[in-house]
């Protein structure tokens, strides 16, 4: 059982230059959604550069409960590609990228700016990629003492440790999803948007301690709790009962809180047979099999 000692995405504040590492696209979208949500809630302008198309990027945010339509319409939220911002064709130049960043900071002005950059462009055949540490250093200098925060997003499976180490020093904080259990069979981690936990793989009683810790921490937060089991292929009775008991325990809370179970039809049926429908605080949301 390992709980990451890193900063949580929800702890970031103004003039942070944070380095986010993620393990899979679901995690990237989840953490970005939390970063975007908190930025929009704080009245900041929010910009996300990624290698997903802007439509895909905003759809992923919407799927996690972000009111993207209003924010896009008002210009508070921008999802964009790298072209003309960090890249010109397949060429990267730290100087040109900083020119773009300065312009964004000027446009946002006193509103403040939250900028998330998926760094996977640097994995492609881009000339000038050796200027990446220089760029990170300049970003760190540029945001100091401002109302701007920048979240650089690195895929920890695809970036080599040397590159990650060379850029880490320029960041004020390092951010990752809290992970309660990770092995080839099972992954249990915190989900940030909507808040809760995410379970992937196969879960049986042998991982009950990790599940209990994850549930305890998720319930300690305020508001509704989502148990995202869409990527979970198997759950045994003791772990399913532990989740139901957690939902039962929330029942008399004030204000009323809900536990939302997202899972495939087979698992949803298992929860029903174990009494899920008799728990008022519990909602079962069935997701399609893939």
């Amino acid at each position, binding site marked *: 059982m390992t709980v990451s000692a890193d900063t949580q995405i929800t702890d970031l504040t103004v003039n942070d230059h944070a380095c986010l590492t993620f393990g899979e696209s679901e995690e990237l979208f989840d953490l970005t959604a939390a970063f975007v949500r908190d930025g929009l809630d704080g009245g900041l302008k929010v910009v996300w550069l990624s290698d997903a198309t802007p439509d895909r990027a905003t759809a992923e945010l919407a799927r996690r409960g972000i009111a993207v339509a209003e924010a896009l319409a008002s210009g508070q939220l921008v999802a964009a590609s790298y072209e003309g911002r960090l890249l010109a064709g397949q060429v990267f130049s730290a100087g040109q990228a900083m020119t773009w960043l300065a312009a964004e900071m000027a446009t946002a002005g006193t509103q403040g700016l939250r900028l998330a950059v998926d760094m996977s462009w640097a994995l492609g055949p881009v000339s000038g990629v050796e200027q990446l540490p220089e760029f990170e250093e300049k970003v760190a200098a540029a945001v100091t003492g401002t109302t701007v925060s920048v979240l650089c997003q690195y895929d920890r499976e695809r970036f080599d440790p040397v590159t990650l180490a060379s850029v880490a020093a320029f960041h004020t904080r390092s951010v990752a999803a809290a992970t309660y259990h990770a092995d080839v*069979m099972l992954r249990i981690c915190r989900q940030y948007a909507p808040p809760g936990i995410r379970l992937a793989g*196969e879960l*049986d*009683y*042998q991982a009950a301690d990790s599940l209990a810790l994850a549930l305890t921490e998720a319930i300690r937060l305020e508001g509704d709790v989502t148990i995202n089991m869409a990527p979970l292929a*198997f759950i*045994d*009775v*003791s772990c399913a*009962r532990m989740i139901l008991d957690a939902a039962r325990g929330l029942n008399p809370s004030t204000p009323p809180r809900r536990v939302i179970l997202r899972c495939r*039809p*087979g698992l*949803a*049926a*298992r929860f*029903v*047979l*174990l009494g899920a*429908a008799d728990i008022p605080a519990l909602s079962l949301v*069935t997701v399609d099999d893939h």
Partner: protein
Amino acid sequence: MTTNGDGRPQSTTPPQSTTPPQSTTPPQSTPILDQAFDAGSLYTLRAAVAAHATQAGLTPGRADDLVIAVHELAANAVRHGAGHGRLRIWRSDQALRCEITDDGVPDAKDAENAENAAPEAQAPEWRTEPGHGLSLVRQVADHISLSSGRGGTSATISFALAASGPPFRLDWHQADGCIVLTVTGPLDLASAAEFSRTIANLLSESESENENGNVKLILDLAQLAGWDSVGLAALITAQQQVSATPGARMILAALPAHLEQHLREADLNDRFTLADSPATAAKTI
């Protein structure tokens, strides 16, 4: 991990240290799967069961049900019994029969891993308190028999292989102020979503047409071929939606005898009102 020609397990898990207890009906044929298990090999056990269930022709929903049933019984042997055990599966024309045995003698290594293994290993018995998976096994398996003695414990479950029959379909009509919904074919992973949508639509439409509510729903199940856990859960959810709708009622009519017996054995019969036929249901609803 599979069996070889003579049915001996090619497992890397510890072999049985003593002869497992005799099953209640000793089979003559060669099992299609014969595999030893302990705490570290439950995952491979589930994978092997899933593969054989699908190969034998169980539908995806029923294959999932077999996997959870075997897992719960095997996990019970690991946690509350010897700490290890043996699974054998036989296939007949009509059914898959699975036997999970546990010789009741914990290995020194297993005893450290198993919760409360020592006292229970001396007096093995099937426990049924909450937290134990046995109630779920009863809900998903067609038949279950358990035995225990000084030689250990043995659980046998069977899953009927689906006979060919008519495909799933739903028909409904109004009669005597009731909605009669006829369910034909299997109610399972493939069809339950359509069933649930139809129930929800019938409830909301009838409610808006009839200001007093009082929706009377009769499910004519004479042609219902069977269910998996997803289908059974859909029936339970439908009943709960009806119960939550003021004035609404639902009766299960003409439920085939073997399914009615399964409801009783799964301890779910109290959740439903049953009637012999749609006509009887219309009189009593």
